């Protein structure tokens, strides 16, 4: 049962344009969401997060939007740079039944920024 889904395995964007990565979830108990970036042969690197009490969080070129009614979040990168080429993972954690600190990950989206 895939509770966090990233339906696009890959995305190709031109340098300087906006990259939009999407993530859907099914568990209504999730209350905290994170995006991780992963380069080959490295571990995931924390990028940005958002609490369920917010609908937007911004950090430099990265913005995460959360639509709780649709159980959907997205990561916007603008402007996209060649160094942004990586696999991006969406992750979520739940507060019930206890503060479950484990992260539930999506399958990842491979982003390629073309010059």
């Amino acid at each position, binding site marked *: 049962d895939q509770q966090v889904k990233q339906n696009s395995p890959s995305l190709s964007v031109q340098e300087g344009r906006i990259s939009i990565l999407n993530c859907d979830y099914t568990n209504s108990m999730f209350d905290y969401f994170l995006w*991780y970036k992963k380069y080959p042969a490295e571990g995931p690197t924390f990028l940005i997060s958002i609490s369920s009490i917010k609908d937007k969080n911004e950090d430099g070129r990265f913005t995460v939007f959360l639509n709780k009614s649709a159980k959907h979040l997205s990561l916007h990168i603008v402007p996209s740079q060649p160094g942004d080429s990586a696999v991006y993972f969406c992750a979520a954690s739940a507060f019930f039944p206890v503060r479950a600190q*484990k992260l539930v990950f999506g399958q990842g989206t491979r982003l390629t920024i073309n010059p």
Partner: protein
Amino acid sequence: EAGVTQFPSHSVIEKGQTVTLRCDPISGHDNLYWYRRVMGKEIKFLLHFVKESKQDESGMPNNRFLAERTGGTYSTLKVQPAELEDSGVYFCASSQAIYEQYFGPGTRLTVT
């Protein structure tokens, strides 16, 4: 500040053998997690330590997997005996706060 380190980076063993993976968390991080990524799929939770205690081991696949965290510092994950389906990349992560977890580079385990 040193990040999460894992050893070895790559291990190739035969089915039925034993392998022990090691993780050194970021200094001062009480929370330590193990995750696994199999066949390029999603990263899946295995277990969570708070200091030396197992907080959540709901993701451990079976009793062939044994995790320990001696003195609340480094952790080991032993697979005994290894099976073909255990192949994958094993990640360790640590955190101080509840939310953001910092990952190590992973150990790629290949069981032949």
